[in-house]
């Protein structure tokens, strides 16, 4: 009898310890790992850019001439860095191609079937709300007028948020359409969509914000106004 009671108690203690360790892993360790991976991605990008990648013709919002075919995005590879001053002045995350679970562990993920950065159409990005560095933890604080700045190494793209955060269901794929119906946009343009999960620790809904391309400038001219203190 005593042996049974003792063994059962030991098993309970073991199970409790396991759960605590798992919580530590999810809340803390994934963040530690993600921070180091994201920094690696950004270093890798900056190295790439410093080595002077292929010449790229910047397509401003008014530019009608098609620029020469830019390098294609490769799945799981970073191609841009995103800055959102509202989420913190030091907030910057790499943007990778594809929305697989493995990609989302390394940074923000670009929906592969949506437009390229700065191009006509809808450039759509997904990011973790919680775990893996909590990139979009403060997503509900985003407001219309906030800047979302991206760089691909040659050009700064400043998007301005027009609508959001808008709450929807996970199956609502039309939020990343070239002209999302609920966004209020009526004509084709250069748009940006950010998606994350809602509630913070759940997956029953999604939060969306929409933005339009406000301005572009070559990196040689320095940081855009939205990023200057």
């Amino acid at each position, binding site marked *: 009898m005593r042996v049974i009671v*003792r*063994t059962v108690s*030991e*098993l309970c203690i073991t199970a409790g310890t*396991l759960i605590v*360790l*798992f919580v530590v*892993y*999810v809340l803390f*360790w*994934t963040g530690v790992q993600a921070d180091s991976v994201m920094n690696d991605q950004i270093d890798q990008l900056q190295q790439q850019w410093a080595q002077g990648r292929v010449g790229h013709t910047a397509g401003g919002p008014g530019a009608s001439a098609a620029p020469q075919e830019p390098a294609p995005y490769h799945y799981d590879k970073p191609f841009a860095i995103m800055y959102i001053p509202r989420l913190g002045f030091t907030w910057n995350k790499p943007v990778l191609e*594809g*929305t*697989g*679970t493995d990609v*989302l562990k390394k940074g923000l*993920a670009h*929906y*592969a079937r949506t437009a390229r950065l700065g191009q006509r159409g809808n450039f759509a990005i*997904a*990011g*973790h*709300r*919680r*775990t*893996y560095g909590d990139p*979009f933890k403060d997503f509900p604080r985003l407001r219309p007028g906030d800047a979302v700045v991206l760089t691909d190494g040659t050009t700064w793209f400043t998007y301005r948020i027009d609508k959001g955060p808008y709450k*929807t269901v*996970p*199956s*609502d*794929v039309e*939020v*990343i359409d070239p002209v999302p119906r609920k966004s209020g946009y009526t004509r084709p343009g250069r748009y940006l969509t950010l*998606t*994350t*999960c809602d509630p913070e*620790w*759940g*997956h029953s809904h*999604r939060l*969306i914000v929409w933005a339009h391309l406000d301005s572009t400038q070559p990196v040689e001219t320095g940081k855009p106004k939205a990023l200057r203190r």
Partner: protein
Amino acid sequence: MYGWIWRHLPGNVWVRALIALVLVLFVIYALFQYVFPWAEPLLPFNDVTVDNQ
């Protein structure tokens, strides 16, 4: 269970404690390296896209 392991470890108290500590650390390492990364995607925090690709 733990008493049984303790009795089957060799050496005096100090050696046993050392071996026990190494075992515990090994188990934690295995959990963080293999078990938790496998279990974590079963939780909902990964669903942040609208098309579930």
